[in-house]
């Protein structure tokens, strides 16, 4: 999807100049973005970047210290009871009642959202199908696997067909199979026209799901755009991943001095570099790393991706 298309979409969420301090620490620093109807918008950043704090302000859980939030044409604050009906929140931590069955959880939160009667019944049935729990609907959720709980956690947020669905790192701690089914359901939602705000620290998820992505670090949006726009920011630099053991610290120091190398980051098990002209620099890089005492097990040249963008913008690797 291109930027041109989005300008024609009705705006669902508009965030301007959002700020949050905890003590002397500015956790969210002048954050602005907007999301249109049917758009999936990603907040991509490492742990502690401020993603959950932004989402808590957007959902009206905590007040902002400065800035404004407009949701479906109305201002959103913790006191905006009516406006909250537009939001479907899927918190980062599981938020379901262990002593209730899957169906009872859905019915309860559905009623809380003002659904009732036939509509509530139908939506509950539909959502149970969608999250693949129809045959386990009558079981207490404390007996569910982690993946099943996660899916129910998401289902509750979808129940009342919110204008904006907010998913806070919904795949953390989930097995690969459940993860894939979660990603598939999110992809399906966008086609139904729901606006989605999706936070993650996995760049693959952001790349796969999101129409536009904000790269966020230390409370600030470092860059924003479609995947293509973001990758262009790197100026066409390649990424080189070195895997191995030995003296990676000394290797990093040596590689930083090499002309054409932009950033180097990593740990004992490997290094990630951004470089101009990757293929041309491959030989000297391998030689320098080996000379500094690093034993290489594999070397990979990667076309620019969001990982490269993050490294380019912040000098840090995104992976944890």
């Amino acid at each position, binding site marked *: 999807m291109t930027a041109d298309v989005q300008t024609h979409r009705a705006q669902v969420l508009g965030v301007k100049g959002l700020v949050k301090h905890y003590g002397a620490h500015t956790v969210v620093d002048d954050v602005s973005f907007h999301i249109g109807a049917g758009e999936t918008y990603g907040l991509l950043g490492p742990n502690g970047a401020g993603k959950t704090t932004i989402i808590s302000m957007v959902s009206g859980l905590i007040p902002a210290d400065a800035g404004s939030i407009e949701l479906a044409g109305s201002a959103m604050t*913790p006191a905006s*009871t009516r406006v909250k009906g537009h939001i479907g929140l899927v918190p980062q931590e599981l938020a379901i009642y262990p002593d209730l069955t899957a169906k009872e959880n859905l019915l309860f*939160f559905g009623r809380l*959202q*003002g659904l009732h009667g036939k509509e509530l019944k139908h939506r509950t049935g539909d959502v149970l199908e969608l999250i693949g729990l129809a045959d386990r609907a009558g079981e207490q959720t404390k007996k569910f696997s982690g993946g099943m709980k996660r899916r129910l956690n998401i289902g509750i947020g979808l129940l009342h067909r919110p204008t904006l669905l907010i998913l806070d790192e919904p795949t953390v701690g989930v097995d690969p199979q459940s993860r894939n089914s979660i990603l598939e359901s999110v992809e399906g939602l966008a086609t139904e026209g729901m606006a989605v705000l999706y936070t993650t620290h996995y760049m693959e998820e952001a790349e796969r799901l999101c129409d536009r992505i904000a790269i966020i670090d230390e409370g600030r949006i470092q860059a924003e755009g479609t995947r293509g726009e973001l990758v262009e920011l790197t100026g066409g630099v390649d990424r080189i991943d070195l895997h191995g053991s030995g003296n990676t610290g000394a290797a990093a120091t040596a590689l930083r001095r090499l002309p054409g190398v932009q950033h180097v980051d990593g740990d004992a098990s490997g290094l990630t570099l951004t470089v101009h002209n990757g293929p041309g620099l491959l030989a000297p890089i391998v030689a320098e790393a080996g000379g500094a005492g690093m034993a290489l097990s594999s070397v990979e040249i990667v076309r620019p991706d969001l990982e490269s963008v993050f490294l380019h913008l912040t000098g840090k690797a995104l992976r944890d």
Partner: protein
Amino acid sequence: MVANDLRQRIRDKSVVIFSLLVPLALMAVLNLSFGGFDSGSATLKPAVVIASSEDSGQLGDALLEAVESLPIMDVTVRKVAAGDVSRETKATGADLGIILPAEFTAAVTSGQALSVQVVEGDSAGLETDVLISVVDGLLEQFSAGTVTAEAGNIAGLPHDVLGGLAQQAAAGTPALTLSEGQASAGQLSLKGTLVAGQAGLFLLFTVGFGVLGLLAEREEGTLSRLQAAPVTPGTIISAKALVGFILGVVATTVLLTAGSVLFGVSFGSPAVVALLVLAVAAAATSLTFIVARLVRSAEQANIAQSIVAMLLGIAGGAFFPIEASGFLATLMDLNPIAAFIRGLGITAGGGGIADVATPLAIMLGFAAVSTLASRLLPDRGVRA
């Protein structure tokens, strides 16, 4: 929201355990240790008392009658001349001899020192000890000038009488009431106090499943969903408070009913008792607002609630009657649990709504004041 909470609380069984099973078990244990000397109990054998009654007034006979009609044991009083009591007691194998002086009534009513001689039988056993304690207690009552009022008031007995066997003996002695016709000032038997006290004490735990459940929801993560839903914070808090209140009313009703059936205590008019239960549940629920303001976590909340429950419960007389005087007594009078037990004492004695107006006012006043106070306290816990 209320129905949902109730369903969960019942399903996770913690309410059933903490609000019903534990207090019932405690009642049973306490009842065994305090109330073992029940009428018809095999432990106390029928006893014979040899007594002289040369008292010119009424009190000597009143005392002997009280001894004879003790509900905890079958006592026969045989009257002989003062000089024969000692010999007769030894000869017949009686349990106790009592020699009441001729000027007994006169001495009591004029507040003079008096001595009542008792003779232990040769086969002196548990029964003799119990009888001596009872006579001792009665004499204390008499000389305290309380003969015409509330003689059955266990809490009115001097503390030394409340020790050991004497306490056990006193356990089932509402019949020590010498003056009749003052029913609505009546008091509970020790067993009744026990049942009422335990019900009141555990009520303070039970209501904690309401508002304090919000803290647990925060830890479970569901609070953020509630807060992000289109309902006002006031609605959420009220729903939780209502849950605590309903659980409290149900648990207290069950405990009082079970207690009175199992331990043979009667609390009087069900309608008036119901009013007392509603009032004390309101008072207890209001306390959870304050606790919710002062704590930061569910764990702290549980600890704080336990401390509050034990303090109010013990001061209210949940385990044993407590007496205080002066300022402390006034303070203890304002304890809703104490007011609840007092109220039940009044209904047990046949009192009606008008008679329990004061305890009701205390409990409802307490509810109003602590609800108000919780509004003024700085919020450390749940945002409301």
